[in-house]
């Protein structure tokens, strides 16, 4: 009556669990991977192309005189854009003077006093919305506030416009830097009898200084490339000027005006100025980001 085991259980072929190469799932997976990989290259292409083209067009024209001379009158060649570099530095200086103390003090409130409070929530919300305000509207604001009131275009008005752009960036990044300082550090300072003011100014701020410096640098890099807010605040100037209350030339505005006029010499200068601007902005961004990445407490 006993049946041999072999009869009851027929021999089973080992099943191949590998998905077939022609299955619709395989085809979909492979093609989606290829497409997204291609998209990644596509996104990187403009960066590479812009850096390469700006270097190719700008380098031959770049020389010592680029930094020391004024642009040539239309029709002539040579010259430089030294006045625009000085102008950019002045407007950025004014913007930093406004936005840095303002932004850092606000960041101190958010991280030291107002954690989790309603006020802090709305301040962060406003800062995020302010970050999204188009740069040109910061220019309209400064025009309406400074230029229309004082009666003339000025480096000061340009600085105010850039300060509006820098402010939320400085605040948010400085806040992140302050948040990275461990809470125990504050407790320790308070524990040995320091007041909150002493704790913040002598313990927390010095520890967060590298992060805050990075914050200001990143904000500066962003502001340095902005032309839109300067078009009708700092306006432009074809000559050397260091007067904060007079129109002043800046690198981005100079690039804009020289790009849209039909003179070859000016267009070449625009490329050289673009190389200087792009070089500064990219190097600053890369260095600041690398430093920010390494910071661990």
């Amino acid at each position, binding site marked *: 009556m006993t049946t041999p085991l072999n009869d009851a259980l027929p021999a089973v072929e080992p099943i191949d669990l590998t998905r077939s190469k022609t299955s619709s799932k395989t085809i979909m997976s492979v093609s989606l991977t290829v497409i*997204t990989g291609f998209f990644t290259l596509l996104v990187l292409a403009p960066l590479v192309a*812009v850096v390469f*083209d700006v270097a190719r067009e700008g380098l031959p024209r770049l020389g010592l005189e680029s930094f020391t001379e004024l642009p040539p009158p239309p029709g002539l060649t040579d010259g430089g854009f030294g006045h625009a570099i000085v102008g950019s530095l002045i407007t950025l200086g004014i913007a930093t003077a406004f936005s840095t103390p303002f932004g850092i003090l606000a960041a101190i409130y958010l991280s030291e006093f107002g954690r989790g409070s309603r006020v802090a929530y709305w301040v962060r919300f406003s800062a995020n919305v302010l970050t999204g*305000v188009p740069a040109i509207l910061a220019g*309209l604001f400064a025009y309406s506030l400074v230029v229309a009131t004082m009666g003339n275009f000025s480096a000061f008005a340009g600085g105010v416009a850039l300060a509006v752009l820098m402010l939320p960036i400085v*605040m948010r990044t400085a806040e992140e830097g302050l948040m990275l300082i461990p809470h125990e550090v504050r407790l320790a300072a308070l524990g040995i009898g320091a007041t909150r003011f002493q704790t913040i100014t002598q313990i927390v701020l010095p520890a967060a200084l590298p992060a805050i410096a990075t914050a200001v640098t990143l904000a500066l890099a962003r502001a340095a490339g*902005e032309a839109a807010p300067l078009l009708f605040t700092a306006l432009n100037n074809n000559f050397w000027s260091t007067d904060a209350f007079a129109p002043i030339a800046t690198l981005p505005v100079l690039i*804009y005006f020289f790009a849209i006029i039909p003179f070859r010499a000016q267009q070449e200068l625009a490329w050289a100025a673009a190389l200087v*601007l792009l070089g500064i902005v990219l190097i600053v961004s890369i260095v600041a980001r690398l430093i920010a990445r390494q910071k661990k407490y």
Partner: protein
Amino acid sequence: MIVGGSTIVINVNGWNGKQPVYECKTMSAGTEGATQSNRGSLEKRLSKQSLLDQGFFWLTLVMAIGIAAVLAFVIYEIGRSALPAIQTFGLGFLFSTTWDPVQNVYGALPQIYGTLVTSAIALFLAVPIGVGVAVFLTEDFVPGYIRTPISFAIELIVAIPSVVLGLWGIFVFIPFIRPFYQVLNSTLGWIPLFAGVPRGYSLLTLGIILAIMIVPIIISITRGTLLSLPPELRQGAMAMGATRWETIIRVLIPAGLSGIIGSVMLAFGRAMGETMVAAMLVGNSNRISISLMNPGATITSLIASQFGEAGRTQVAALLYSGLVLMVLTLLVNIFAEMIIKKFQNVE
């Protein structure tokens, strides 16, 4: 502190920047007066410090509220300066196509149209590409040592000054893309979208360059969203037998949808407000054209190209158009902020 009949006064001299200084004095019970005066000076010092503490707190609070005030002030100032134009042209400004500095009659419909169309083109290109790249750089398709520098490079695209991108657009991108436009125009010219004479300065060109500028925003926020999803979602989907891409499309993207929508809204706001690229590449033509091959104008290009030589009424009209842009970007940004906030609260 009384210890065995003598008084020890611990004098905290505050913090002098290096080390806390503690002064301990032992006094006999007889010198009560001296102790009193010492205690008085300690209290005075403490009250001074608490005043400093209070003052510092209020200073930072005022500065923090100042950020919100700056936002309100920006809106108020632009609104105030635009008021004469608002009173003159009313809501008709939004629907009129006339921009006539000679007659001082202004309407911004072509510019509003151009702003929305170019941003829409930019989103149409940037959203699928951005989400695709974010997925590619989040799920382990390539090893980390390739992924990190790629993400880093993509972040750098944001740092390119827009005026440099505009310069590149005029002298490199337009000559490069023009032949493609001509092919598109000659084969698909019967579709109104691609009709007209393709010169290069057009709504489509601006849309493409805007897409280049906003794609990093979509990538970085979408990546952040995908990375923050709980790993159980992936494991669960895989355990059910889904392939990697089925997991991504059916589980991860729906789960992270609010973050993705938030990133798209932020990108939309950025595209609408971008100025230099628009002024340099869109062609600044005051007309509404269905064809993307034709030049057009955006609110930003209008302001940038006309503000310099504008008369009094024209300046007010330009500020009015600026106010329209402000309202559009504010709505989009606040919406984006709320979506992202809501999503983060769920996390």
